[in-house]
């Protein structure tokens, strides 16, 4: 369909006309499926899962290769200045051991206190452990690709954390890989509290790798740069007391924070069952990505 009139050939004229109709049909089909995927995101779940199963393993193996190559270089780098590093590490280790003993004592005390209060202790179980191998490139939405899928027991809605902190929750699962809605996505709202004084806050992503934190109560801005935000467990989806973000800047009544688990550098991501299984049945209030 390049020129306005392809000459006197009837056949060429009809060909042009039908290709025009086909393009219009393409636009209409596209718009209908776009509306479907916005209104009823579950419609395309199986197709999306299949696509994830095709690309997930490729991404995972490419990730392994890059990580091995990086490991060789940083491994060689570690031999420089090894003696001083060793001394530093020994000193840190000693300090850590002291802190650990203190922590163990506090843990014991905690157990006793909980027993006297007859609080129900939640089992922390792990569904699967995977790696974050990829992410959305060009989009105001923040997704990541995780190297475990429904064959490992991963289901939509499960929270994902790493040793450093909260990563996000599962919004799509293929058999071999799954898609994670990161904490920094706009649609992800984590009920949390300030670690320093326990003030309840809400952490909502801003789509650019940072998180917007706002207090539930109106009043003076309770944040200070450097404050740690931990999840509160309210809502039943995310487990409590997992570090979420660190405040870097105050902005009006809110604060801008950086997620503690940087998806680009976390080594492992742990998929956990929802903190209160009942939260799975009602489903999260926000739409399931797209």
């Amino acid at each position: 369909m390049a020129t306005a009139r392809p000459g006197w050939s009837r056949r060429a004229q009809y060909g042009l006309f039908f290709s025009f109709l086909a393009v219009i049909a393409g636009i209409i089909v596209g718009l209908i499926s776009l509306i479907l995927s916005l209104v009823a995101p579950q419609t395309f779940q199986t197709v999306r899962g299949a696509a994830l199963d095709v690309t997930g393993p490729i991404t995972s193996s490419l990730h392994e290769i890059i990580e091995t190559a990086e490991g060789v270089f940083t491994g060689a780098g570690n031999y420089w200045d090894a003696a001083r590093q060793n001394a530093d590490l020994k000193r840190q280790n000693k300090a850590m051991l002291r802190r650990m003993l203190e922590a163990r004592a506090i843990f014991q005390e905690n157990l006793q206190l909980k027993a006297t209060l007859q609080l129900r202790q939640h089992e922390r179980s792990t569904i699967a452990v995977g790696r974050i191998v990829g992410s959305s490139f060009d989009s105001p939405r923040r997704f990541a690709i995780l190297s475990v899928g429904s064959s490992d027991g991963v289901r939509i809605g499960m929270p994902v954390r790493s040793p450093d902190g909260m990563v996000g929750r599962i919004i799509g699962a293929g058999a071999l890989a799954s898609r994670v809605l990161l904490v920094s996505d706009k649609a992800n709202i984590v009920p949390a509290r300030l670690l320093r004084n326990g003030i309840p806050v809400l952490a909502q992503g801003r789509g650019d790798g940072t998180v917007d934190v706002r207090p539930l109560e109106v009043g003076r801005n309770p944040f200070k740069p450097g404050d740690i935000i931990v999840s509160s467990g309210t809502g039943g989806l995310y487990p409590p007391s997992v570090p979420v973000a660190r405040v870097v800047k105050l902005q009006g009544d809110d604060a801008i924070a950086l997620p503690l688990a940087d998806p680009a550098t976390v080594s492992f991501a742990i998929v956990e069952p929802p903190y209160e299984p009942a939260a799975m049945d009602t489903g999260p209030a926000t739409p399931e990505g797209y």
Partner: protein
Amino acid sequence: MVRAALTPPRRIGQGPWRLARYVPAVTVVFASLLAVLPIVSTSGWYPDFGYLVFLSWRLLRADPWPAWWAAPLGFVNDLFTAYPIGFSIALWSATMLALDLIDRRTMWRDYWIEWVVAAVLIAIDEWLQWRLAEAAAGPLPFSHMVPPLIVSICVFPAFAWAISRVDAWRLGR
């Protein structure tokens, strides 16, 4: 005449590659598949690779593929890049239509005009993505979209150049 005399004589047996007709579509699918690269981006400043290659082909030639192929190509892009399914189908088909209309209107073309046309279409792409993210997740400031927009517009000439090389290769020139 002079230019024809200056070019080296064509070797016998050199000509379009046997599957030359399918090369453009295959390169677009490969560009969409760049989404499998193990890059974890926390800001999302990467360009929409599939759309850039699609635009490069369409601006280079009026008929790199039958017009209706835009819809399946867009579907592949949606599947692999986690856009809402239907977004690239509609946008890419509309792009084919829009560029045909532009082809009828423009009297002459040069690199600058092609870059401006591409920049406008890329801006429409980013703007639509922003509207969709708003519809799905909630209000976002458009300022988040400016860095990826500038990056995409700046790298477009590189894509256009690469595609022109691929075109020369597939036609055996």
